[in-house]
């Protein structure tokens, strides 16, 4: 398996606080990687560094073998990587269809001006994450947390990204919504998407990942398959807070 | 040279007084009160009406102007800012509209022409070739007393600490038993009172006219942007930078250009540091 996303020697400091400390890992093409760790371990920071929302102080991030560290967020998305957020961020005064439409837009003024929107593509994407055709005209305020996460996933998929970073994708969902979301992720895995998933819900995470990385205080403390990481002494103690 | 130094210090004191009420709202309420300048107009005209038209003692005029400022501050918070629930854009727009409404109301009541205020404290003395009116000297001294008082209040009183807590983290403060709504109301009252007081002095330093809110607003804005949000030391520092720039450009370059440097300062600082020189988080 070839490496698609690679982080090498990432250091990020916020003022005096070290958020990630010399962190390196690779993600293989088509792999699903779980990222776990206690609160404040630096998982979300990793996502925002990969997406260019913050810049690392040291180290390199590459996608498909090309360094992307100097690119702004939208350009990284153009290279095929995108993320969701712990707190979904829909466009509040736009319908489901319009939210997806923004994700589908090409990043070119000419394309946005003269290219027509593609209702079929919007419908396909909405259906691919489990919406029905009737949902297209609904507004975010009418949606449940599960639907909001689906909408955010649809918008993320709409950008054409093949590597998807999911941040706390199960938070705030009912049991039914969790299993729906899990099915959805597994379907997308089969379609060849690469995932990095951050979750506190370890039980839901287990069947979705090929491999797990555990972090604590900004550093990588264990790496391997789910069971071996869970049985790791350092991981256990970091979760217990000792 | 002495002239510039003395004038600079006195004017800077006045500017610090103008700015402090504005930074207070910016830091505690986290909103941009574009109607801040209206307090100055209202304070100035209230004092004018009370002491020069009705002939009340000057000190009564000043005190009543301050009270009026506080009342208007509270009403502004209750009627406009609170219902808009911290929507920054809406607060900016509605306070801008309010400022124009106040200006128009003043024209309706007092007419368009500018008025001359008698100095609140009369008398002049000459220090090393510089003319110092007791009026602006009083303004500067009052400003210093208020700034130091405010600093001590925030630092050492329970209420002051509660205010500071709200300015840092509304939810956190609420959890620890501080009522952010009450704190906001208090801040708006203090801000209004300080604005009205500054208005009395500013009007007696320049002139009293309905459009006199724009210049102080720009000064206050510059102080907040350059000096940092809610920093009393920063307020003082920047008020002095602006005050001295004005005095120097007035006496050495051209009187018409005195406001230009304030604007340039705002623009340059924001362009170099989009979040302000000592900016704390985005607004």
């Amino acid at each position: 398996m070839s490496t698609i996303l690679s982080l090498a020697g990432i250091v990020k400091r916020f003022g005096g606080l070290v958020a990630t400390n010399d962190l390196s890992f690779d993600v293989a093409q088509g792999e699903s990687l779980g990222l776990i760790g206690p609160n404040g371990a630096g998982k979300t920071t990793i996502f925002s560094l990969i997406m260019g929302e913050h810049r690392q102080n040291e180290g390199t991030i590459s996608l498909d073998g090309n360094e992307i560290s100097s690119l702004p967020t939208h350009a990284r998305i153009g290279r095929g990587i995108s993320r969701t957020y712990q707190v979904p961020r829909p466009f509040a005064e736009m319908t489901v269809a319009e939210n997806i439409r923004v994700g589908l837009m090409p990043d070119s003024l000419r394309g946005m001006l003269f290219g027509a929107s593609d209702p079929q593509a919007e419908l396909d994407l909405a259906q691919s994450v489990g919406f029905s055709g009737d949902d297209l005209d609904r507004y975010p305020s009418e949606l449940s947390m599960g639907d909001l996460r689906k909408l955010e996933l649809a918008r993320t998929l709409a950008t054409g990204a093949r590597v998807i970073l999911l941040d706390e994708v199960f938070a705030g969902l009912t049991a039914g919504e969790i299993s729906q979301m899990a099915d959805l992720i597994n379907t997308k895995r089969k379609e060849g998407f690469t995932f990095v998933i951050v979750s506190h819900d370890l039980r839901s995470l287990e069947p979705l990942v090929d491999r797990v990385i555990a972090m604590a205080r900004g550093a990588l403390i264990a790496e391997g398959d789910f069971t071996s990481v869970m049985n790791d002494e350092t991981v256990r103690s970091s979760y217990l807070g000792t | 040279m002495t002239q510039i130094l003395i004038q600079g210090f006195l004017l800077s004191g006045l500017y610090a007084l103008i700015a402090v009420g504005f930074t207070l709202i910016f830091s505690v309420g986290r909103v941009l009160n574009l109607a801040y300048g209206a307090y100055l107009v209202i304070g100035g005209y209230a004092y004018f009406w009370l002491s020069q038209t009705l002939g009340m003692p000057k000190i009564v005029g000043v005190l009543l102007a301050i009270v009026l400022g506080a009342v208007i501050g509270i009403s502004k918070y209750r009627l406009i800012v609170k219902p808009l629930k911290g929507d920054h854009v809406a607060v900016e727009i509605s306070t801008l509209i309010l400022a124009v409404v106040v200006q128009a109301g003043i024209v309706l009541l007092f007419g368009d022409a500018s008025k001359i205020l008698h100095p609140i404290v009369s008398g002049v003395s000459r220090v090393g070739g510089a003319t110092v009116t007791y009026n602006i000297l009083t303004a500067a001294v009052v400003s210093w007393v208020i700034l130091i008082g405010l600093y001590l209040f925030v630092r050492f009183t329970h209420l002051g600490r509660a205010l500071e807590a709200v300015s840092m983290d509304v939810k956190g403060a609420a959890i620890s038993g501080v009522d952010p709504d009450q704190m906001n109301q208090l801040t708006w009252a203090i801000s209004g009172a300080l604005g009205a007081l500054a208005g009395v002095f500013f009007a007696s330093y320049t002139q009293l006219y309905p459009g006199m809110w724009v210049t102080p607003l720009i000064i206050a804005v510059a102080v907040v942007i350059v000096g940092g949000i809610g920093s009393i030391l920063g307020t003082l520092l920047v008020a002095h930078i602006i005050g001295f720039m004005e005095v120097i450009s007035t006496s050495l370059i051209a009187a018409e250009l005195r406001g230009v440097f304030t604007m340039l300062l705002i623009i340059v600082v924001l362009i170099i540091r989009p979040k302000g020189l000592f900016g704390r988080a985005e607004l």
Partner: protein
Amino acid sequence: MFATVNWRHLLLWAVFAAGMLLLPELVKKGTLRTIIMAQYLAIFAMSWDFLSGRTGYISFGHPFLIGIGAYTTAILSYRFGVPVELSIPIAVATTVVGSVLFFLPALRIRGSYFALVTLAFMELMYQLTQVIRPDLTGGTRGISGIETLTRGAVNGFYLSFVLMFVTAFVLWLLSRSRLGTALSAISMNEDAVAGSGLNTTKLKLFAFCVSAAVAGMGGAFWVHYLGSIAPRALFDINFLFTIIVAALIGGASTIIGPMAGAFFLTFLLEYLRPFLPGAERYLIYGGIALLIYMYQPKGLFEIVSRLWRRA
């Protein structure tokens, strides 16, 4: 191209144009002159709204943009005898280029600070036009005797109507495109727009350039309608206030809103003139604007369309 345009929309536009073009037959010359002012205000309000109403970046500096356009053509035609056919396009180009140079750094700034910088620009412009090269700008007194393009109210009306109509139609097309959707998305959550793979700086710059071009064009034609220009009338908070209030009470982020707001305000002003000759009318303006804004921030357009839906 724009998929969301259908014949019904075009029919409405045609009816609107036909109705407006009949006005010179129906109303008095005096009313026509009021309509001309309303149409220029509508152009400015639409220009403001395309930037601020859509993206949520509040510009307090629109008089600055209008002023660049107006002063450029006034100076070129009055001082240097440049023909108007040339000076107006130059004025529009100058507004766009000049304002982009000034504002490009400002576009990095978010939220309230953007509004403050634009306000500072307007005040700066006011002070500078009086001091720098008064031989060109006419200083505090401004310039009068500038060539006018039309004679009589009727021709003035036709010209300003064409300008307003073309502006409205072009901005409407833009807002119906995907680009319009993306601009509105910026006001809702700018980070999420970037997170959808779009370059928000490019989008904001585009909105800004369009807004500046419309403002510059409006300003240039306006000065050739009035025949005079002075800094206090232009770089004035009351002027800024009128533009913003027109856009807001009509309904921000729409096309009909700023136009309706501009007509409403201008006619209100006309009717108030006998009773309130001076600046007091801003009390009424502001009072109405504040009430409407506090009640429904989306303006009359939203109030009317809600009533419509209920009925």
